[in-house]
């Protein structure tokens, strides 16, 4: 019996440690009076997580309160967004993910949240979406790729998500070529598969930029609205004559209904954090992602537009 008692005591101790680490209840006064939780839609250790941690550090300096990073990975940010939607709109819980969590996935997966359940705050970087192939592939530009596809009876395409799959399939349909979409987990795996010529082409959200060499990958087209700085010779889809593009961002959001004064304070602090030296250096110089910081209004408009587009794209089926 004593043993069971001991386990009970040990468990109690563990639980009290756990609860003690939760922020104390809000005290009335000037926001922020207690630590802020930044939920991150990616697992610890990757590029996106690192970026979020640097933003958290800069935000901490701006607000004078600790910013606790809490990784809630899963489902392309859906887990994080679901929890964020349920959190109190008091400025003490904010979330970091990519915009597709809000403007894409709700139309594909059954999410508990809708795009207008959040206050959109700022973006930190623009992703560098591109269609890539292995350096040893027998085609080097968009036209040659289409010819190759017609000759071979189709292409295999490494896709990162249902959204990227749908995007590629629409363009393939327009060109009347067959593509076989192979779902791949993570951008790095896509690169490995195209570098080894196991897949003809693949979608990269920017990781490919470190592999632009003769044993790595080459870019066939920029999928963002404009050309990508690291591949100035690869035309964007718009230049190639398609009425499509896929620009996307790493961004921050809060539950809907932040009080106006807190919201103003938070947006200002986040803006400063997102443009801080450390964050800019990581994005521009190390990740090679432009440090694009959209305002709440610009970001909200972007998400509304993309949501409408995706609702149309995926609603038809």
């Amino acid at each position, binding site marked *: 019996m*004593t*043993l069971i008692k*001991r*386990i009970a*005591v*040990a*468990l109690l*101790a*563990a639980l009290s*440690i*756990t609860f003690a680490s939760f922020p104390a209840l809000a005290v009335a006064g000037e926001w922020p009076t207690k630590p802020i939780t930044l939920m991150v839609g990616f697992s*610890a*250790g*990757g*590029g996106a*997580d*690192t970026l979020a*941690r*640097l933003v958290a550090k800069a935000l901490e300096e701006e607000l004078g309160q600790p910013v606790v990073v809490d990784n*809630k*990975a*899963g*489902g*392309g940010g*859906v*887990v994080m967004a*679901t*929890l964020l939607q349920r959190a109190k709109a008091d400025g003490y819980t904010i979330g970091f993910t990519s915009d597709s969590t809000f403007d894409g*996935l709700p139309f*594909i*997966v*059954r999410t*508990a949240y809708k795009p207008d359940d959040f206050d959109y705050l700022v973006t930190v970087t623009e992703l560098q979406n591109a269609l890539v192939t292995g350096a040893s592939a027998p085609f080097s530009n968009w036209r040659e790729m289409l010819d190759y596809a017609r000759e071979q009876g*189709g292409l*295999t395409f490494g896709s990162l*998500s*249902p959204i990227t799959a749908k995007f590629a399939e629409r363009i393939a349909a327009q060109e009347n070529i067959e593509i*076989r*979409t*192979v*779902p*791949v*987990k993570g951008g*790095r795996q896509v*690169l*490995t*598969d195209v*570098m*080894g010529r*196991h*897949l003809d082409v693949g979608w990269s959200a920017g990781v490919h930029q*470190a*592999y632009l*060499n003769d*044993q*790595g990958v080459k870019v066939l087209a920029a999928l963002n609205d404009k050309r990508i700085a690291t591949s100035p010779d690869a035309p964007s889809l718009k230049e190639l004559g398609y009425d499509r593009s896929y620009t996307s961002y790493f961004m921050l959001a809060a539950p809907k209904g932040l009080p106006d004064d807190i919201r103003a304070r938070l947006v200002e602090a986040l803006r400063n954090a997102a443009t801080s030296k450390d964050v800019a250096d*990581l994005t521009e*110089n*190390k*990740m090679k992602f432009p440090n694009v910081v959209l305002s709440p209004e610009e970001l909200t408009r972007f998400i509304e537009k993309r949501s409408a587009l995706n609702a149309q794209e995926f609603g038809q089926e």
Partner: protein
Amino acid sequence: MQEILNGLSEALTLTNVLFVILGVLIGQIFAAAPGVGSLIAITIAVPYTFYMSPVAALGFLIGINKGGTIGGAVSAILMNTPGSPEATATTFDGYPMTRQGQARRALRTAHFSSVTGDTLSDLVLIFVAAPLSVVAMKMGPPEMASVILVALVIIAGLVGSSMVKGLIAAFLGLLVSLIGMDSATAAERLTFGVPELMDGISITAAGIGVLALGEILRQIVYVETLPKLEPDEANSVKLGGRFTWKDFRTIFPTILRSTFIGTLIGAIPGIGSSAAGFLGYTAAKKASKTPERFGKGEIRGVAASEAANSSVVGANFIPLLSLGIPGNVAAAIILGAFLIHGITPGPQLFSEQPDLIYALFAVMLIGDLVNLITGLFTMGLFARVIRIPLSYIIPCVVVLCITGVIVADSLFNAWLLIGMATAGFFMRMLNFSFVTFIIGYVLGPMFEEAFGQTLIMANGDPLYLLQRPIACLFIGMAVLVLFALLRQHRRSRRTAVMAE
């Protein structure tokens, strides 16, 4: 040559060496505590490395990774509770050795096997990374699917005494691994609308639950039946056995075999050290003239598992450095740290920053040496744990397991952990193989992913496989192993029947 010297002088500063030592010690201690593991240590450590010089940062993280290879064996050997799936095969003979009063000898075996395996695979990395990186490039989805098939078939040899129960457990493992969002279609599987389940049952919750906490629950049930130790009696419990030069000679061929297996597995991104540990163990048992001694405290069993899972650590850097592809989660996190410091691993790294590469190699070898030396002390210290009565240890382990999962995942996953531990407990009581359960859980989803991709690539044409000779080779191997296993199983059943 100049570059090698530059690299060496860059690595051999006092700060760097101190960070490597610190990393190794942290890795050893975190990994030795059941339920915590060196991966958690690496994840926590990454943000601190932002402020270090690149070589110090990498040395620190690599040190943790290396320390983890020997620490992981401690709780497996002393308590029968592997802190992570890769040390599972270490329990097979490590724990029986502890029961026979050979705990210290088992720990030393694990220590020397791990360090030797790790060092040899580092040397392979340093001298033949470039040719071996070809292996990673040749492994497309069809090849991955067929290699995992071979691993599954070989490991099926571990199903235990009842084939049916072993298979049921394996399928339960597969079932648990299915929970979560399917990455291809974003469809939810078995989540019952719970958002926290979208990411699936994490490896921490499943691994620690079934392997460590499940075993602890079983020991709690039996603890009352164990003879009570008086305090002074406890002090006289044998730490047991000396590890002799003769022991090292006995296990050396086993270490070499396991290192070979572990290095190959490590060079292929994505398979991981758990499979290596099991494969190394199975191979050693197959090669042994006395396979019946395995599972009863055979020193070679401990060496086989530990050398194999540790050699994966060095070899994982082969695809990481030569292609920029991380081989496992730890390597992926270390890759993140590389990027923070503005280093992009890949073929160009060797030509653009040769100093850094040689500094990195130097840091790895220093890490091996530190691991060897500090391990002499720490493993001796850890061995004393068995002098503490179980009734004191068990509550500590329970707390460590639960807090470990909360730190690594979330409070929600602590409940999952308790659920998985209960499952692990009943599997032990009812004699279902928790080993096949964990293998199904770990390798099942990898196989599913690669196989699904292969089907799409083949476009419904079975003849497509003929264009992938490497995949054909592996499938052929899987079939051969399967037949060998079936024949052996039938023979052992016959002898068992005759014995009755």
